[in-house]
């Protein structure tokens, strides 16, 4: 399949999906992580366990939820637990294998900002904030980050550290004895970054077909290290693309269906 046959977004979702081994328990966020997890579940990882922070455990949605609490999730879940239990009995208890995170900013050690651009008290841009991310970053056995790569989002210095990656690097995270291992991979629209085992600094280890190292460097706000010869990520397989596009098509149809409510106003 040639690069003309798929978008960068699709390549990114497919690459993220491939990181997931069958049977893993994933804590899933909305958007691209949800698409990637469900793509994996519908292709190579049918026994992937998807946990959403709304309290839905083991969901098998047919369309992608717009929010993390759509009825689609409730209706296909193995069980629904009160939201606090997701964070206590599941995440803090160490039962989550893979946490999926995105953010507005990431630094070279995989630390994430989803709180503010600018100063906290007088922000240029107030972002949605932490949600479940800081605890996912701390407790999930490993973390996958999915973010589009630009010089404004891959920054030398975070405006705010919402969720921890490897902190200051070079073993700083381990020294803090955080339960989870930290970001194992950052999947971007250029390729895949992975932490150096010694310095913890993210290194470009794989590129999408047709993407150059220079273009990836230009999309990074710090001097990006690269593996001697980055791998080339195999392009999406036909089946991966079909499943993903079907999923998106079903989702679009579901999300534009008009709602009608019967109201019998009590007298």
């Amino acid at each position, binding site marked *: 399949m040639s690069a003309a046959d798929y978008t960068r977004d699709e390549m990114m979702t497919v690459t993220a999906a491939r990181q997931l081994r069958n049977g893993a328990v994933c804590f899933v966020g909305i958007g691209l992580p949800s698409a990637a997890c469900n793509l994996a579940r519908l292709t190579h990882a049918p026994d992937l366990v998807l946990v959403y922070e709304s309290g839905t455990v083991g969901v098998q949605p047919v369309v992608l939820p717009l929010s993390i609490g759509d009825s689609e999730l*409730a209706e296909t879940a193995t069980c629904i637990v009160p939201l606090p239990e997701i964070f*206590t009995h599941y995440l803090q208890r160490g039962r989550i294998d893979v946490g999926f995170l995105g953010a507005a900013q990431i630094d070279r050690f995989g630390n994430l900002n989803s*709180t503010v651009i600018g100063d906290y008290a007088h922000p240029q841009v107030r972002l949605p904030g932490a949600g479940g991310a800081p605890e996912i970053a*701390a407790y999930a056995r490993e973390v996958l980050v999915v973010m589009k790569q630009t010089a404004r989002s891959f920054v030398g210095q975070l405006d705010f550290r919402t969720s*921890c990656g490897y902190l200051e690097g070079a073993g700083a995270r381990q020294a803090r004895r955080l339960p989870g291992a930290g970001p194992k991979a950052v999947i971007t629209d250029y390729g895949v970054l992975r932490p150096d085992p010694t310095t913890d600094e993210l290194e470009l280890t794989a590129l999408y077909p047709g993407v150059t190292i220079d273009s990836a460097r230009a999309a990074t706000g710090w001097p990006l290290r690269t593996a001697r010869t980055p791998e080339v990520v195999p392009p999406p397989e036909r089946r991966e693309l079909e499943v993903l596009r079907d999923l998106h098509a079903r989702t679009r149809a579901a999300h534009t269906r008009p709602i009608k409510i019967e109201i*019998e*106003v009590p007298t």
Partner: protein
Amino acid sequence: MRLLPLRDAIGTYVKDGASVALEGFTHLIPFAAGQEIIRQQRRGLHLIRMTPDLVYDQMIGMGCATRLTFSWGGNPGVGSLHRLRDAVERGWPQPLTLAEFTHAEMAVAYEAGASGLPCGIMRRPVASDLAKVPGATVQELRCPFSGDTLALVPALKPDVTILHAQQIDARGNVLIRGIVGAAKEAAMAATQLLITVEEQVDTLRADMNALILPSWVITAASIVPGGAYPSYAQGYYPRDNAFYLAWDEIARERSSFSAWMDRHVLGVADHAALLRTLGVAA
């Protein structure tokens, strides 16, 4: 439990300056109650909610709130809450003081409030700058058994918690079915508990282990069909995802926001009328 029209319930129990938690995680968000608070022009509220969602975007944009306790303030799957941003970034229509937590912290804080505790306990503070912001209150604690560093989070005890639910029975017991979020904890933590429901039934259609709030923990209830719209009520109507997408445009500018609120909230008498103006109800 008193069964009251929503207008009277809000009028009686939600006072200017109160701390008010409208909960329901994506599901069963009490929009009708929030919009009635707007209609009654409450001021100086301390709004509490894990995910402010559109309902708080509306209340903040209409000037009801001076303080917000929250853990994720976006339009889920869509982007920003523009009215929340405008208040924080530019103080419009008035400045908004933030008390910001993570989801996990806020869940623990509600649970502590529900349990009559002054604080709740978590594992070590995660390495987040949230611990350093103005309004940060999480304290460290050394575990006397393990030596681990733990965190204490102050309890949330709203003056009023408002929930939307599916059914109330003849005795005033209320059923919440589907995704429950932190509804139970927010309910039990509150001094006063207001409920809006889709319908009144003789007997709840509920399993033995269903989430039911007994009538005697409820202060007042109001029957408001469609009261969670554009959020949803499992078994009644789905989430209007198209509306959530459309809100991004509506709320982006002050003028389009104000016009929408004038027409659909201030310009109508109640929630049924609001649903009709939107073409959602006949």
